[in-house]
């Protein structure tokens, strides 16, 4: 499968966030989207999930224009945003059962336990989500995103709130999903973790993918250096142009 953004633009009033952005994602690929705060990473994730409409440009799945009013299209996407999408008064299992029913699938007791165990919540008592810690909520959010076996995973800061063990668990899941030929796009600042599973890094700067770097055993320092070079070089060029 191929998931592409072509000449994508997004403006909020006079503020232009994305400018003719092109991005192509293939099955079995884990792409890490890097960028400064406010670069437009979350906006791009929202556009790719259909929650926002682009000002111009198009999003395609296997060359066909993605029509997000179709449930079939929306359900191909597993999404994690800053919000958890969880209901605080329901238990973890009830939340997953609820989303499974909304997706039109039935989650058998065994599958539910397996999914909870997969994100490290197998032994959690059936208490409302409001009493969960931030890390536990994030684990449940990951389980919710994987619930309907989506072909595309769009994960905005998925390491948020996770401890070392949780981050390792997420990496393990990402590796498994990569083997299952999913398309995975992750935004994060946790380079040390994502470096272990990413196929390539796309640097979002000034509304475009400024550089795409394959993860050919890059060390953390090398990656940081490449990232800084892109961000600082372009900032420098602009300062010079202005002066």
């Amino acid at each position, binding site marked *: 499968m191929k998931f592409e953004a072509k000449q994508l633009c997004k403006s909020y009033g006079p503020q232009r966030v994305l400018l003719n952005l092109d991005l192509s994602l293939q099955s079995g690929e884990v792409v890490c989207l890097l960028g400064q705060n406010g670069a437009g990473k979350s906006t791009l994730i929202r556009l790719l999930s259909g929650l926002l409409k682009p000002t111009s440009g198009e999003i395609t799945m296997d060359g066909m224009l993605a029509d997000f009013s179709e*449930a079939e299209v929306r*359900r191909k996407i597993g999404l994690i945003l800053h919000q*958890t999408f969880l209901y605080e*008064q329901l238990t973890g299992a009830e939340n997953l059962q609820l989303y499974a*029913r909304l997706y039109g699938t039935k989650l058998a007791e065994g599958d539910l336990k397996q999914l909870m165990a997969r994100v490290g919540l197998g032994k959690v008592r059936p208490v409302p989500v409001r009493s969960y810690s931030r890390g536990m909520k994030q684990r449940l959010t990951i389980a919710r995103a994987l619930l309907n076996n989506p072909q595309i995973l769009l994960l905005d800061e998925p390491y948020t709130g996770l401890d070392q063990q949780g981050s390792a668990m997420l990496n393990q899941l990402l590796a498994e999903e990569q083997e299952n030929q999913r398309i995975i796009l992750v935004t994060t600042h946790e380079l040390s973790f994502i470096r272990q599973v990413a196929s390539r890094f796309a640097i979002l700067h000034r509304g475009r993918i400024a550089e795409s770097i394959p993860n050919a055993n890059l060390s953390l320092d090398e990656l940081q250096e490449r990232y800084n070079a892109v961000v600082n070089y372009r900032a420098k060029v602009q300062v010079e142009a202005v002066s």
Partner: protein
Amino acid sequence: MKTWLGTAWVLVWKDLVQEWRSRDVLTSMFSFAVLSLFIFNYALELSPIDRAEIAPGLIWVVMVFAGTLGLNRSFAAEQDQGSFEGLMMAVPELSVIYLAKMITNLLMMFGLAILVIPIYSLLYNQSLFDLRFFGILMLGAWGYSAAGTLISSMTVQTRMRDLLLPVLLFPLLLPVNMAVVKSGSAIITVSALPEFQSWINLLLVYDVIMTVVSLMVFEYVIRE
């Protein structure tokens, strides 16, 4: 159709379970309604004839004001928990979210009517236990929920949602208010019964049109 209704039922179940466990909205709606009835009882010293004439209007006003507290929260709770976008990704059609919220709001109004009628009867010493009157209140509640749920989905995206909802909703409810009060009066005072049917027709037409139009436009309202 079966999937659509099934999904709506799942969402209604979720809203009711959430509300039952938190009791945020129910407590405030019910206490507001009871307090309003008490205040009207002390503020208005009415003869038995006057009481019969104002009963439908008074009960409907209390239900509308108390119901607004619930309407305000119906989408705001989703927004605050950040779960609305999760629903948008999962449901088969976005209009099903509207249908579920409308049914939940209607059930809240049903509960409110069950609470308000006996308390009014007790305080004002006038029996309102009439199935026809209850039916009129429910028809009014249907129109109120249909319009209110749509307006609530619009105002939830604004900063002044609590203020905007009644300002936008109440003018839209004018036909419902008139029909409920007039037809309710006709039943309770046993007068003007010939006009009764035309008010009921107005209520039914309003309810159906408002529900159908809202289902059609909901997707455009909630999408950016």
